[in-house]
């Protein structure tokens, strides 16, 4: 394998890892606040991609307008999802909440099949994302470069919000001690909504970028990435935002580089995530950057 080819694979791994990271952040944020696995998160990702698709195909918006609208709608959807599926069960046993999460996921998928049709849809990739860049023998599509940049910007903004703003401070307070946060007159519901909105916004960005890189949509497209990114979040230490990003990149990297170096294993690509999960959980049950032991769900 030549260096050029290796670099090409690396660029691909980086952009896949970025996409995983964008989705994994949502899992980890929600878990951090509510100790809840939002099983419908992968479907929110799918929805983001469809919303952008229809914004262009039906409402004739320019791609950036579609992106903006779809991302905001996806965020709003996430807030609504929490409102409908999780808030009424805030004080219920955790198993009820999990069942509600799984139910919400199936519901979204099946309504999507009805509304969007089961047949895959081809996405028109915006021209700027579709430029072939050649640098010293390495050629990659511009979208593979845009995705990591967007991810890093999103991550920087998110970390700034969490570490430096009042609402971020409240998020950290709610995630460590719910009752103590209530005693400071923090509106916990608002913080939870904000968390769902932010996580869903990032999943929306991820879904749309995904549809530029792999330009085909189907209503179940969120299932496998959703599962893998949940694993990425656990690998990184669930509840820990940089951990989720690390997990996403690890997963994307291992997946694509293994395929590149050992093409015979391509058929097992979806299994790598699980192998990595088992290894990490055996070595460090709380995840790579996780602190306290992960609670059983």
């Amino acid at each position, binding site marked *: 394998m030549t260096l050029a080819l290796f670099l090409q694979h690396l660029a691909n791994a980086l952009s896949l890892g970025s996409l995983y990271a964008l989705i994994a952040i949502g899992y980890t944020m929600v878990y951090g606040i509510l100790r809840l696995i939002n099983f419908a998160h992968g479907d929110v990702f799918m929805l983001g991609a469809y919303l952008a698709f229809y914004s262009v195909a039906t409402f004739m918006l320019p791609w950036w307008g579609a992106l903006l609208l779809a991302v905001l709608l996806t965020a709003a959807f996430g807030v609504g999802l929490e409102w409908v599926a999780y808030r009424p069960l805030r004080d219920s046993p955790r198993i009820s909440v999990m069942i509600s999460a799984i139910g919400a996921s199936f519901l979204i998928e099946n309504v999507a099949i009805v509304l969007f049709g089961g047949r895959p849809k081809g996405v028109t990739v915006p021209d700027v994302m579709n430029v072939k860049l050649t640098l010293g023998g390495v050629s990659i599509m511009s979208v593979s470069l845009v995705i990591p940049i967007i991810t890093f910007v999103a991550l920087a903004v998110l970390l700034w919000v969490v570490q430096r703003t009042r609402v971020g*401070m409240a998020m950290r307070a709610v995630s460590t001690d719910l009752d*103590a946060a*209530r*005693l400071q007159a923090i509106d916990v519901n608002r913080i939870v909504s904000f968390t769902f909105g932010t996580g869903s916004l990032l999943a929306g960005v991820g879904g749309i970028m995904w549809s530029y890189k792999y330009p085909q949509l189907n209503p179940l497209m969120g299932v496998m990435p959703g599962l893998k990114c949940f694993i990425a979040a656990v690998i990184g230490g669930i509840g820990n935002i940089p951990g989720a990003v690390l997990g996403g990149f690890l997963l994307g990297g291992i997946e694509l580089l293994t395929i590149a170096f050992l093409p015979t294993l391509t058929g097992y690509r979806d299994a790598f995530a699980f192998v990595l999960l088992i290894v990490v959980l055996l070595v460090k049950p709380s995840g790579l950057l996780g602190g306290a032991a992960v609670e059983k769900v």
Partner: protein
Amino acid sequence: MLKVDELSVHYGGIHALQGISLEVPDGAIVSLIGANGAGKSTTLRTIVGLVKASGGAVSWNGDRITGLATKDVVARGVCLVPEGRHVFPNLTVDENLILGAYSRKDRPGIAADRDKVFALFPRLQERMRQKAGTLSGGEQQMLAVGRALMTRPRLLMMDEPSLGLAPLVVKMIFDIVKTINAEGVTVLLVEQNAKAALEIADFGYVLETGRITLSGPGKQLLADEGVRKAYLGDVKPVGAVAR
């Protein structure tokens, strides 16, 4: 004035509070003492809305506050320093204080209150940028009190502030309680350290397995034979700190 009227709380099958009534007049220090498991924490947590009452009512200055969300109770000036302090360990001392003022919008007032807290607890100012989790138990208690003061309470409820602290620190905390009270904040104090709690109290209540069994002025309860036997370990030499 805080008025608790026939308050009842169930945890599943456990009847933790069986209709207790008490009053905390404005400007007073009222102590609620009782053994472990008597229902002291439950009383405070129910007043502030962290636990749902199954019967009875709590009113604050004539308004019924039973059933309100905790944030609304706190916003009305009733706040709780919880048992075990519960500072936010991964936030700095300063961030903990800022969060205390989360619902307030008056920036100058917040800054002034922060200065007041630092004047009350100079140690906190020294450790301002430190993570709260790295503080000693006594410092965490100071922070928990300081954070509560940042909500600008008119009624400060404290759940076992002396728990697990060295006698010297306990004395300091009780002195601070008196100072805060002298500045016009009403105090409802829950303690297993009955002697210290009754000494500073204008009025005291004794709670036993979910019922108020005795009440009276602090000095009177201190002199009460039953209280001395049950909570002050009567045979201990003078000056020993009751557990």
